[in-house]
């Protein structure tokens, strides 16, 4: 139905000879909200990095917005799993959010009025405008995460990649966050990596399970057997017997 924003064909990635992605095929359309679940080390982060062009596959083809990934980076927003930075780093929230405009502003030029306007809007969206002068390292983990989401938003992406964005965020904030995504999904394609199967199954429109290979389920229900294949263990361990249902949406 929508336009195709991501297309992976038979993508293989190896680290030191050990395959991490094995023949992954994936299509994301511009109105998709795709959830990716899978065990630790399954290759979820790697898959996102392939889409970002940060990792080049050993085999296979990748198109983002019909172009090679590195050509379309400025249309992609990214919130990484670990934002490793020095808590004493001398940058304000405002500085950090503006970084999202780096690709648009261009080398050698200062940020334009538009850039600043977008940054303000994004901070408003995540409810952090009041904190714009605060030093980034002095915020709580959840607040930092909101700033990083704002940073991803200011790029005005057509595709948003979120790598376990709620891992360091407390449950109260998580709910807010998923509600934010509910709004965003009108405007862009979203790929959300999460361990939180229940949340994924509640909010996303499609689910894929990744454990080196990708089991892509489109918008159908996930059968327990599929989860079992992905996690290679009795599903009971993960979701105590009852597989998360779409039904939860109505909660």
């Amino acid at each position, binding site marked *: 139905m929508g336009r195709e924003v991501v297309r992976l064909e038979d993508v293989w990635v190896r680290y030191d000879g050990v395959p991490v992605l094995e023949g992954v095929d994936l299509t994301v359309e511009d109105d998709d909200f795709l959830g990716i679940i899978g065990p630790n080390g399954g290759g979820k982060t790697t898959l996102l990095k392939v889409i970002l062009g*940060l990792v080049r596959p050993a085999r296979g083809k990748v198109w983002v917005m019909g172009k090679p990934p590195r050509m379309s980076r400025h249309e992609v927003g990214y919130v990484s799993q670990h934002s490793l930075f020095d808590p004493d780093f001398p*940058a304000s929230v405002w500085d950090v959010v503006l970084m999202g405009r780096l690709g648009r502003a261009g080398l050698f030029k200062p940020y334009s009025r538009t850039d600043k306007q977008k940054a303000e809007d994004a901070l408003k969206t995540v409810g952090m405008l009041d904190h714009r002068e605060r030093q980034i390292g002095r915020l709580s983990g959840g607040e930092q995460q909101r700033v990083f989401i704002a940073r991803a938003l200011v790029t005005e992406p057509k595709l948003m990649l979120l790598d376990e964005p709620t891992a360091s965020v407390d449950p109260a904030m998580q709910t807010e966050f998923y509600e934010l995504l509910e709004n965003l999904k009108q405007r862009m394609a979203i790929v959300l990596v999460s361990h939180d199967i229940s949340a994924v199954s509640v909010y996303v429109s499609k689910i894929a399970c990744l454990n080196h290979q990708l089991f892509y389920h489109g918008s159908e229900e996930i059968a327990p057997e599929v989860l079992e294949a992905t996690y290679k263990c009795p599903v009971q361990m993960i979701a105590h017997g009852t597989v998360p249902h779409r039904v939860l949406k109505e909660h």
Partner: protein
Amino acid sequence: MLDALQYDFMRNAVAAGVLAAVACGIIGVYVVVKRVVFISGGIAHASFGGVGLGYLVGLSPILGAALFSLASALGMGLVTRRTRLPEDTAIGIMWAIGMAMGIIFIGLAPGYVPDLFSYLFGNILTVPFSDLVLMIALDAVIVVTVVLLYKEFLALSFDEEFGAVVGVPVERLYLLLLCLIALTVVVLIRVVGIILVIALLTIPAAVARQLTHDMKKMMVLATVLGALFAFFGLWLSYEFDVASGATIILLGGAAMLASFGFSGLRRVSGREAIVPADGGQRQDRR
């Protein structure tokens, strides 16, 4: 001191101190926040190989130092990024190899090597006017580059991965930054010498960091602090007839201890308790 300023060489020394402070104020901030203190130290020491080469082939030693420091900047940048050698081991080894090459070259050079010590330990009192011109040029390069690429360098220092994602050529910028460090090292060699360069790069920025969270302000503050250390260090060394470079460093060191001691105290009194009992290996959140 003021009466000493009637002498050309003292005025040159003050000018050299200020010009050095600009370079080390700006670049030192990146050195400290991007945590490349040891890469900078390695670049400085490796430049000694160039000094030796200069003597050997009859080139200007400072030109040799510039070549070697640029080459080692690129070398250390690529080795620490592209290979899996433990970073500290790799830097330590390149560092010592540069120095060792310098020693061997000097040994092979014909005739005397008169001002070897002044390359190692520097002497701000004898900076000739021609060097001041060189320093102005290098300061200009540094200031212009940092003004033009301020936002990119900020992103590079803060979060390289995101920088790459939004299309900043992070590796090339990183290497450029290391080259700027190399140029700064060349500027500073005249003032404090190869061995103490690391201190002049680090101390003003580290003190400035205690006082502000804004990178631009940090750069201005570090420059001002560096100039103050240079000026008063020069004064003290003049009054007490001791080596100028070392005095500048010790003055900076004292300021550093004072500022950290102060903020350390503040922190201790703020924390109430929690002693990471033994084994609480400091967890760097980085």
